[in-house]
C-alpha cells in the first residue's frame, strides 16, 4: 500500500436536520483499498457518498484527492468543470439502480463508449473494440452490444454500468449498494466479478452497503454509521467478528439471526 492517501476526508458535515445527513466524518483512503460504509437506511451513508464523489457540497469539512498527476486537490475548491472531468476520467460511480447510472435510451456499446467520447476519442472502430472487450470482461454477451439496456436483466444492467465506469481506467470508484435488488445467486456472481476487477485494476473503492455480507466480501476496512455519525471503524474482520460499539453489535447480531 502506498504511503500517500488517495482520498483524505476531514470533519465532513452535511446536515439536512439534526441527525439527518452526515456529521464530522474523517478518514483516509489509500490506493487499492476498499472501504465499506455500513449502516441502516437513514444513517447518512448515501449523503456521505454523494459528498465524497463531488455531487453534494458539504456544509463543513474538507476532502482532498490525490490526482493521477500526483496533485493534491481540495475537491470543493475545484471548478465544476474540473470536478466533472475527475468524475469521468479518474473516478467511477456505480449506482444502486442501473437506470441512474446508465443511458437507458441508447445501446450498450454507446453506454460504454460515452466516457471515451467525452474525453475526445473520435474513432468509431476503436470505440467499438473497447466496448466489446469490456463487455467480455464483465461477462456480457458481445452479440448484445447494439441492444439497449432496457432489454437486459437487472444483473446484466449492473455489469454494463460497471463496464461503463471502468472503461476510462479510474483510480477511485464509488459504489452505492451495487448488488442491492438483485437475486442472491446473481448477487454472488456480481460480487465475485467486482472483487476480481478491483484487484486486477488496483482500484480504491468506497462502497456503501447495508449488507454486511457484501461488506465482508469486498471491504478491507469498515466505517459503521448511525444517525449521521461514525460509531466504529476498523479492519472488516475485526469490526464484524469483535464489534465494540453496541450499535455495531446489534447490526452484526441481526445479520446472524436473520
Amino acid at each position, binding site marked *: 500500500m502506498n504511503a500517500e492517501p488517495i482520498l483524505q476526508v476531514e470533519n465532513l458535515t452535511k446536515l439536512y436536520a439534526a441527525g439527518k445527513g452526515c456529521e464530522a466524518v474523517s478518514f483516509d483512503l489509500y490506493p487499492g483499498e476498499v472501504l465499506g460504509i455500513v449502516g441502516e437506511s437513514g444513517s447518512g451513508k448515501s449523503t456521505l457518498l454523494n459528498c465524497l464523489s463531488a455531487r453534494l457540497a458539504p456544509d463543513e469539512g474538507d476532502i482532498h484527492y490525490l490526482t493521477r498527476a500526483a496533485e493534491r486537490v481540495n475537491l470543493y475548491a475545484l471548478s465544476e468543470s474540473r470536478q466533472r472531468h475527475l468524475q469521468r476520467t479518474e473516478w467511477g460511480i456505480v449506482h444502486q439502480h442501473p437506470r441512474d447510472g446508465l443511458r437507458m435510451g441508447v445501446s450498450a456499446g454507446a453506454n460504454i*463508449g460515452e466516457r471515451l467520447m467525452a474525453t475526445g476519442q473520435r*474513432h468509431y472502430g476503436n470505440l467499438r473494440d473497447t466496448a466489446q472487450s469490456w463487455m467480455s470482461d464483465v461477462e456480457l454477451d458481445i452479440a448484445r452490444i447494439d441492444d439497449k439496456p432496457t432489454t437486459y436483466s437487472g444483473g446484466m444492467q449492473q455489469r454494463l454500468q460497471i463496464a461503463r465506469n471502468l472503461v476510462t481506467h479510474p483510480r477511485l470508484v464509488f459504489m452505492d449498494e451495487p448488488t442491492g435488488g438483485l437475486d442472491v445467486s446473481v448477487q454472488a456472481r456480481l460480487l465475485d466479478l467486482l472483487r476480481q476487477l478491483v484487484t486486477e485494476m488496483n482500484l480504491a473503492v468506497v462502497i456503501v452497503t447495508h449488507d454486511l455480507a457484501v461488506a465482508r466480501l469486498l471491504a478491507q476496512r469498515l466505517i459503521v454509521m448511525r444517525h449521521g455519525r461514525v460509531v466504529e471503524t476498523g479492519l472488516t474482520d475485526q469490526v464484524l467478528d469483535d464489534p465494540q460499539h453496541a450499535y455495531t453489535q446489534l447490526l452484526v447480531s441481526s445479520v446472524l439471526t436473520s
Partner: protein
Amino acid sequence: MNPQTIREGYNFAYLDEQTKRMIRRALLKAVAIPGYQVPFGGREMPMPYGWGTGGMQVTAAVIGQNDCLKVIDQGADDTTNAVSIRAFFRDLTGVKTTERTEEATLIQTRHRIPEKPLQAGQVLVYQVPIPEPLRFIEPSEVETRKMHALEDYGVMHIKLYEDIAQFGHIATAYAYPVLVNGRYVMDPSPIPKFDNPKMDNSPALQLFGAGREKRIYAIPPYTDVKSLDFEDHPFEVQTWKQCCAICGSTESFLDEVIMDDQGAHEFICSDTDYCRERMASQEMPV
C-alpha cells in the same frame, strides 16, 4: 421607401420599437458569443400555420428601409408560406423584395441555405423549431445549459455512434450538429447536412431564431463551423445519382417529386431561384 406603402395602424415591421430593441440586444450578445443560445422575451407574431415565429421576430428586428428581402421555405420562393411572409413584410415595411439570392440583403429561410454562395453584407435569418442540440438526450434545460457551460459534449457523439451501429453510416441527414468557433455545439435548424459546409466561414451573417423556446443564436461572418464526425466515419454531404430534371445541375440539393399517378418520379433543385437562373442562362443565345 414610401411611407404610404406601410399598412395603416401598424409599426414598421409589425413589432413595437421596444420589442425590437430587446431582440437586437439578444442578437448582439449572440453575435459576440458564436453558437451560444441567448434567451429573449419573445412576442407573438401573426404567422402561417406550421411556420414558427422566431425567424420572423429576428427579421422584424433587423430589417431596415433599404433592405431587399428574400423569403424561402425549403429552398422555394413560391410556397404559400414564403409568399405570405414576403407579402407580410412588404405590407408592413414597404421594403423591396426579391427572389434572387444575389439581390437580397436579408434572407429569411426555413430549412435551406441558398445554393448561390452568400456575400459579405448579406444576412441569413433561420427559422428554428428546436434550438437545443442536446435535447434529444437531456430533457432538463438546467442540465443542458450546464453542459454547454462546461463544454460537456460527449453525448453528441453518442447519437452519431448509434447511427453507425444501426445503419453502418451516420444517417443523420438534417439538423446535423456542428461545433461553432471551436466552442459551442449548435443545432443548425433542420437544414439538410448538404448545407452544413455553407455555414463554415461564410462571409454572410447568420442569425437563428426559435420562437417557442425563445432563443436566439448566431454565426458571425467568417466563423469556423465544423460538422461533428468520427475519424473513420468522416462527415459527408448527400449526393445523388441523378441530376436536376429541369436545369441539369449535378451540384445542387435535389428534391424528389412524384410526376404522375403511376409513381414516376424525378429529381429537381430544391432552390427554385438557382434552378431558374441556370435555365435562363442556358436559354440565352450564345
